[in-house]
């Protein structure tokens, strides 16, 4: 009955072959996952390096492609920003595989909740139907929904490096290598294709640098997912880097990852902590907004055409980032044809990981890699579900609690990290995007739903 070590590995193998596991194993898996997820905070602490992924939407074969491009679990540390299910035909296999990996390698994969991880939405957009088809009853759907209620609402990535260690990959054929800044520059953004070839590379704050692919000079700029800059003298998307005249290794702020976006009810990340997240996604309120909102070219807050959540403008993002000492918000939730899109001077990025969405949108997908800051020492992240006494985490202001040792002096409230630098915007972390297309058609059967088995009517 128990789905431990080898059973789990067997389940993973089976799911990797896109074959559902038996209902009793699903139940066991969900049970385990629940006990694990209950230990996670509403905002999970994650250490760089980490690879951040957006919507998957049941496109199992493309998820496999994602793992091929980004590296396998547990070799790569992953963070998935929700919307695992619905739309695609393999929601069940995709979600269960991710959940298996979570249970098997809890520290190497983080799952947070998307707006589709909800009873109401899944009944409409396919996951409910799929479970019913594949198991003949909705039990599995119930188990999965129960797990949805336990998923964290966001994640906070700390310890990301401000600049990338350049990849030694070849340069994509279409690119003139002269345009690529030297590897010894302070590289802020790099975009690779699925073969690991360099498509663009941007150095931080160097006027002499020119963006790769003659991006800034040509009309390609309009279609670039990097926020266009007014001229080609500055690095694209790094309007806020004037402070980077110091050490290139200056510590970057944290990166907040949520599925949707910000909420007018949440001005500090600590507020998220006070939510009781174990519930169906509500129709309004902070929890709803985090999963439903979208950034938009507006001032302040606006009504969302989705009917839930809000639209929020650059001012909101900048203010929030400043207040919480963030250098970047990573989110998913919106289809972007190029796979990723930075907005508002690179203070927020949308990452989309479902290529050829719905099997016909023709978009490419992307994942975002954040490197590890070598000088990570000194920053101790908030304890996240660590077992056994939890020596790390927030400072307890008193002399009781298990934290009353030297460690706690290094801990700090998230909201007040590095108070001395609050006056200026943070350098964004170095960002490496890997862009990939839908898995080759031949690698799989025709995607289809499972037919009704028997029929009486």
């Amino acid at each position: 009955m128990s789905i431990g070590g080898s059973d789990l590995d067997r389940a993973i193998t089976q799911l990797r072959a896109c074959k559902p596991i038996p209902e009793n194993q699903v139940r066991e898996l969900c049970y385990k996952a629940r006990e694990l997820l209950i230990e996670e905070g509403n905002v999970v602490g994650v250490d760089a390096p980490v690879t951040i992924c957006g919507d998957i939407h049941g496109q199992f074969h493309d998820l496999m492609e994602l793992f091929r491009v980004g590296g396998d679990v547990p070799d790569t540390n992953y963070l998935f920003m929700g919307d695992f299910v619905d739309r695609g035909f393999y929601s069940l296999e995709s979600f269960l595989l991710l959940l298996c990996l979570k249970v098997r390698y809890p520290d190497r994969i983080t799952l947070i909740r998307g707006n589709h991880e909800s009873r109401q939405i899944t009944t409409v957009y396919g996951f409910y139907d799929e479970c019913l088809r594949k198991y003949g009853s909705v039990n599995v759907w119930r188990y999965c929904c129960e797990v949805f209620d336990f998923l964290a609402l966001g994640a906070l990535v700390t310890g990301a490096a401000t600049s990338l260690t350049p990849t030694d990959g070849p340069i994509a054929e279409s690119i003139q290598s002269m345009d690529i800044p030297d590897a010894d520059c302070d590289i802020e953004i790099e975009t690779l294709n699925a073969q690991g070839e360099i498509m663009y590379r941007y150095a931080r704050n160097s006027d002499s640098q020119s963006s790769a692919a003659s991006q800034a000079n040509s009309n390609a700029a309009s279609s670039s997912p990097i926020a266009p800059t007014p001229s080609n003298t500055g690095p694209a998307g790094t309007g806020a880097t004037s402070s980077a005249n110091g050490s290139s290794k200056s510590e970057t702020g944290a990166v907040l990852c949520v599925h949707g976006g910000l909420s007018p009810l949440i001005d500090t990340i600590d507020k998220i902590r006070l939510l009781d997240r174990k519930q169906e996604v509500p129709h309004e309120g902070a929890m709803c907004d985090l999963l439903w909102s979208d950034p938009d070219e507006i001032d302040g807050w606006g009504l969302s055409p989705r009917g839930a959540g809000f639209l929020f403008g650059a001012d909101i993002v900048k203010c929030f980032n400043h207040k919480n000492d963030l250098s970047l918000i990573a989110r998913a939730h919106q289809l972007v044809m190029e796979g990723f899109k930075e907005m508002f001077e690179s203070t927020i990025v949308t990452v989309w990981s479902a290529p050829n969405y719905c099997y016909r949108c023709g978009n490419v997908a992307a994942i975002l890699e954040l490197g590890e800051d070598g000088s990570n020492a000194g920053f101790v992240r908030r304890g996240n579900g660590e077992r056994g006494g939890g020596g790390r985490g927030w400072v307890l202001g008193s002399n009781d609690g298990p934290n009353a040792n030297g460690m706690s002096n290094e801990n700090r409230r998230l909201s007040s990290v590095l108070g001395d630098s609050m006056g200026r915007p943070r350098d964004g972390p170095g960002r490496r995007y890997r862009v990939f297309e839908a898995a080759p058609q031949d690698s799989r059967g025709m995607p289809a739903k499972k037919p009704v088995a028997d029929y009486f009517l």
Partner: protein
Amino acid sequence: MALVAPPSNDRKRVKVYELKNNDWFDRGTGFCRGVIAQEGAKILVASEDDPNRQLLETRISKDDGYQKQQDTLIVWTEQNGTDMALSFQEPEGCASIWDFVNEMQSRLQRLAHDDGLSDDIDSAASPIMLPNPDLGNLHEIENHMRAANSTPGGREALAKFVLAHEYIPKLIPLVEMAEDLESASDLHRLCSIMKMLILLNDTAIIEYVVTDDVVLGVVGALEYDPDFPLHKANHRQYLSDESKFKEVVKIEDTATKKKIHFTYRLQYLKDVVLARILDDPTFSVLNSLIFFHQVDIVQHLQANGPFLRELFGIFTGPEETSERRKDAVLFIQQCTQIAKSLQAQSRAQMYQNFISNGLLDVIQYAIKLADVSIRLAGMDVLQALIDHDALMVRSYVFKAIQDGSKPLTDTLIELFLIEVDLGVKAQMADAIKVLLDPNANSASMEALGRTNSDFLAKVRGQHPPMPQTDSFVQKFYDDSARKLFQPLKDLEGRESFNDMSVQEATLYAYLVDVLCFFIKQHSFRSKYFILSEGLAARVAQLMQCPIKYLKLTALKYFRAVIGLHDETHNRQLIMHQVFEPIMKVLFDTMPRDNLLNSVCLEMFEFIKRENIKILVQYLVETHREKFQGITYVDTFQNLILRYDQMHEPVTTQELDQSFTSVDSDTPGRPLSMVNGGKWGQGLKELDADEEAYFNGSDDEDDLAPAAKINGASPVKPLVNYPDDDVDDDEMDILASAPSDSTHSTSSSAQTQGSPNTPKSSDETPPERISEKRRREDDEEDELLASISSSGPKRRASLSSNSSVGSLKSLRRKTPTIASTKENAGPKKMSLSLPLKSGGEGGNTE
């Protein structure tokens, strides 16, 4: 071939337009008529100025896309590529020409067919004319179709052509030929052609392709998707497997039987064959076709008396096999699933017929079977039935109770307690909830399962319960509830929870969840039940369990209880020392950021925000030290502040207490900052004040106290609260509230030997006015914020709003209150008796 007479030649006034350089150029106004001439049908427009001048003369071609727009516009493309339009003065004129065009077109098509003209002799005139297909011209056909496919007119014409020429049966044999030749390219072309034909989104074509004669050929062609060149599907094999159709009771009506097969094939097309490529319009056409078929099928069956008798007879006939019975359950399940989309009236009719044939017995039969899948199906049927009409199901249960037979609810409860399949168990818990929900009818059980039940509970709370439901619920608490919650009760005395199995844990989780639902829905009955059975303490025990999920469920139960703002419940929580395990969970999880911890924080945050005084008082007094140690959030510091605010200002204490059900201060007031640390001092003041109060000086009676009191206040700044003049009304609340409850307040304060009871001192209340006023303001905000919670606190403030309106009256009133101690105030007002009133306070309820 006889030509019919041309349509009425009444002259229709019309403007002729030609599209030139993207602008509609007016070629003039004239009169329009359709004529049939030697070389074919024509539309002629003669100028109204000069009848001899023809503004337009165009031949109607077989397949050109003519379009009628609005009521008065016909648009088409000439064979030379010019876009033309006729704008009619009258809709009738337009309609008659339109009819003429259609008639002529269809006649031309028939003509072409009869003559075997389909061979491409006239392709210039009718670009959609397709050659008779063979393996050699598939490429050509595909190109033709692709071209036609690009315009709406072309699509329409193509669809007409394909049907009229029975083109699909001509394509089908080619699949096998190509297969024999192993010609992948031809197979791929055939697949593309077939896809294109289906995606023309023509209802007639879609209905045609699933008919017995062609369906296998069609899906056969679709097995070779050019997008997956190395892959071949096996649709034919799947669809030709007749064993998939199960006929529990023979369906005599052949039309209905055919529809059943068609429907199945349509679903297969939608889910499997076309799943990846379906565009939205075709998807919805498929869906509506399926829907209408299903409606027809169910309508036919439910009205078929002999059929129903045979179907339900399966469950009573002694010679029937259990296999057949299971199939019958599954059959009924499918009916009820389909019925969900029927119109309410037909659905009601179906259930009526089913029930009169014995549906309820079938459900009882099914949910007792050993086969899980059948239990699930049985619960599914019940769920659908409850969704349809919970009142009706309840009335059957009620009838059973009155007849002295075992009601469905009892069966459900018994089965629920022993059910091992967690899915069935969940469904049973849901069913019990809905059957016992006094307001459930509008909101369905399905919705309960799929949406936030808290939200629903709120929505439903607005409807008054039915009288029948009331006695139903009463009956439940008299008998069945004990059975249901027995496992919880049996927890008493259980020492260790380390050996709890998953099954057990799940049972408790559901029970607590159901209990949670009941306390929200059946206010006083559930309250009494929980008190008399001592369930609060049992739920609290669950927090010792190492299974975190169960801890969480228990925590959420207490959070729901606190959310009720019910004094009895709150006092129970204190009496049973429920906060001990909650504090333990808090401290166990505290340095870490996790779900349990967040839920604890949210609970304390709620107590603080709503200022539930009895709890604030209890918590701070018992856990002050611990609270002071928790600094990583300010919730606990603020709780202490709340408490201190309640106590510092000497006389405020009094009013606070008599007034307790209402919220007070916001956190972090300067006042509390000042005095926050001086705990002992605050106590003394408080005691003094109370004593002074009960010594009952009548002086206060006629005092115009504001100035004096304020003068004595140690915290002057607050007096000048900006809103001072605006909120007289709010002061009324203060004024009247004491009168309601002084009795209990004062008496218990005097008699109880709590550590904080009065000692002595005669000081005038230092800053009560400002304090109160301040409090009132905050409270108003919070009232608005929590408008949905209809706790006693609202009643308190509402009831008092009608009374007097000034500071003076407030002051004057107090003594009166003191002298009318004997009048027992409304129960709700005794809410936050001082300190540890515990069980005793409950007597006033």
